[in-house]
């Protein structure tokens, strides 16, 4: 069992601060900076608390880190970042990036991201990740020096481009379908949840109007007055209770959102496999055609139609020397091709093996996390029902005394 970073180091994103500065194009902008605090976890016997190290990072640096990790470990389902812009908002929630509630939820999301990476058996060992947490200056340059951008396959970004892969690993094909389904169903769920939250808000808040009217009515009543007045107070309590309830639910929505974004990471791994398989198939195809060419030149038979063949027929055959030179070149290419094919094959098989190991790890994590999230949702509903019962029991008592 690898000793991941999370066990050795306490990591928190403890604060968020608005900053202004100049960006790469020398234009003034406002952005939020996040304070990352780290502390080594001392063994119990030491009894002392290690000092806290801290540094500030902004969202774009987190993005750079994640890009680096995705390119460097293409076989890993890399944890996602919290959303860049507020999505799935219901009317009370702001879509503004500078809104304090959004910033707070993003802070929590960024902390979660770091903890995910730190507890991943492979990713936690990465030096760039470690420096992200500990090295204030020069980190960006360090990342760029790794030259990871060159390794990035631009085709991975073109998510919609299809590659005709003849023999993909079926598991990856299924997994890609699953990630598409997961993405679609979770975004649908989040959209409807936002609408449900909006409506629920409306129901609760309208009850608040009772309070004022009951109070005004109680002024003209003698016997009913007290009951009305106190019932009105409980209606105010009821109306106010929805704010906390829905705030809690936002955290549940964020848990689901993480897996919405995880679906993309999953798809990226499947994509990588597809591309590797495609490259291998193309290379194999190329090798086969070169071998065929060699055969034709060697035996003099033309199996396949080629323009060269036709022109040589029209303008005369090649000399044997010319033919031999060609064959030699082909032989070299074929040998190169066979070596390349072998290494690509090995690469592909390694990739499949290590990717599938991480996918199994991810599946377990996902099942565990989502089940917990669903249970926490039930717990929230129970709490909401209990609050409702309390308020309406009190209100009933007041009404019965009218």
């Amino acid at each position, binding site marked *: 069992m690898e000793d991941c970073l999370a066990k050795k180091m306490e990591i928190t994103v403890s604060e968020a601060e608005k900053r202004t500065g100049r960006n790469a194009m020398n234009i003034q902008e406002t952005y939020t900076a996040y304070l990352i605090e780290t502390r080594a976890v001392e063994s119990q016997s030491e009894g002392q608390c290690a000092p806290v190290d801290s540094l500030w990072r902004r969202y774009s640096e987190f993005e750079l880190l994640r890009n680096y990790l995705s390119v460097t470990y293409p076989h890993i389902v890399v944890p996602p970042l919290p959303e860049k812009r507020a999505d799935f908002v219901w009317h009370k929630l702001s879509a503004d990036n500078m809104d304090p509630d959004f910033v707070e939820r993003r802070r929590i999301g960024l902390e979660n991201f770091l903890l995910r990476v730190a507890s991943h058996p492979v990713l936690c060992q990465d030096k760039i990740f470690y420096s992200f947490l500990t090295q204030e200056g020069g980190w960006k340059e360090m990342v760029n020096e790794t030259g990871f951008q060159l390794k990035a396959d631009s085709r991975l970004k073109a998510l919609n481009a299809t590659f005709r892969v003849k023999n993909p690993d079926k598991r990856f094909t299924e997994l890609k379908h*699953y990630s598409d*389904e*997961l993405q679609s*169903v*979770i975004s*649908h*769920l989040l959209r*409807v*949840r936002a*609408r*449900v939250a*909006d*409506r*629920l808000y*409306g*129901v609760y808040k*309208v*009850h608040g*109007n*009772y309070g004022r*009217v009951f109070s*005004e*009515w109680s*002024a*003209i009543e003698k*016997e*009913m007055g007290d*009951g009305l007045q106190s*019932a009105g107070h409980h209606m105010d309590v009821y109306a106010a209770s929805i704010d906390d309830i829905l705030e809690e639910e936002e955290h549940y929505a964020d848990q689901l959102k993480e897996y919405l974004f995880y679906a993309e990471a999953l798809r990226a791994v499947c994509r990588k496999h597809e591309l590797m398989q495609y490259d291998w198939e193309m290379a194999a195809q190329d090798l086969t055609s070169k071998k065929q060419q060699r055969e034709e030149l060697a035996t003099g038979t033309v199996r396949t139609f080629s323009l060269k063949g036709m022109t040589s027929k029209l303008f005369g055959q090649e000399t044997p020397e010319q033919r031999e030179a060609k064959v030699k070149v082909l032989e070299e290419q074929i040998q190169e091709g066979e070596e390349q094919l072998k290494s690509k094959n090995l690469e592909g098989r390694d990739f499949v093996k290590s990717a599938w190991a991480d996918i199994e790890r991810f599946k377990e994590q996902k*099942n565990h996390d*989502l*089940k917990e999230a*669903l*249970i926490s*949702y*039930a*717990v929230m*509903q*129970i709490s909401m*029902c*209990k609050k*409702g*019962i309390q308020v*309406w*029991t009190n*209100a*009933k008592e007041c*009404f*019965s005394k*009218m």
Partner: protein
Amino acid sequence: DASLTEVNSFSPSVPISPSSMMNQYKFEDGPELRDLFITVDDPESHITAIETFITYRVVTKTSRGEFDSSEYEVRRRYQDFLWLKSKLEEAHPTLIIPPLPEKFIMKGMVERFSDEFIETRRKALHKFLNRIADHPTLTFNEDFKIFLTAQAWELSSHKKQGPGLLSRMGQTVRAVASSVRGAVKNRPGMFTEMNDYMETFSQKINLLDKIAHRIYKEERDYFNEMKEYGPIHTLWSASEEDIADSLKGIASCIDRCCKATEKRMAGLSENLLPILHEYILYSEILMGVLRRRDQIQGELDSRVDALANKKTEKELFSEEIGKLEDKVERANNALKADWDRWKQNMQCDMRSTFTNVAENNLRFYEECLATWESFLASQTVDLHVEEDSEDRP
């Protein structure tokens, strides 16, 4: 007033449960002492060349001597109820005649002649007749008796008798002509208080009606969104293995809460909304009653004013003045007694209606709570099973 004292004495043989207490408040002569039982049911539609209309069956059971039979069954249409109401207003201008459902509700919630509309109206008509039956004075009104007992042709011939519409209109015009301002000046403080009360009450009840409708609308919108919410979880469960059961469980919980929301809405529309509407009508009725009292007093005052300068004629008209004074006194007393009765009933109605609203909401939350708790229990059982199996080598 014998009926009022009945309310305050509880016979020891009657168990004092909250509902029986409320019954004794609701019906002047407790349920055991009622001698007139009326039901309105069985709406039937009639189509003629000229019009389409609905009749309702009115069944009366009674032990009263003045009724020839102990049971009657007649059919009445809305027009007939309108006739009855106007006859009662005519005979007892300062009594509080119960509200009739309006001719046609334009609130856009229901269509004319839809089942919902007919049922709402039937319930309101049933309440109307029973409130009259419970009223200590109105219950003995002759037109009321005819309404309950006469066959269709008897009723229409009876309707044609009596002072016509024009003469009634003439009366009101004269009453308005006699200075109403004077009536307000000489109005006893008690009735000014009533007027002020009714103005505020009317305002508040209208606001409550708006609020209640708004709540209904919000609950309906919430229900519509919830309907979509549950099935998404079921859809998701189709792609999953490990968490499929949890997802299906959540879906079923949401669906159950959805149904509970429907019940909650029904509770509002069956209980709170109709009562608030009735009391909106009541506040109009009461303002009308106060106005009519003012008019009666106005008749007296204007007569007195007119004769103020004619000292000699005063003697001649003293009988007339005396009659008018009696009329005013009777009207004031009738109104005062009916007002007290109305207030008591209103308090009772409001208490029971809002208590019902609270109970409705309690039922809703209790049902949802049970649903989610049983889901949670099923999930934690699974967790414990998983933990146990992990412990084994």
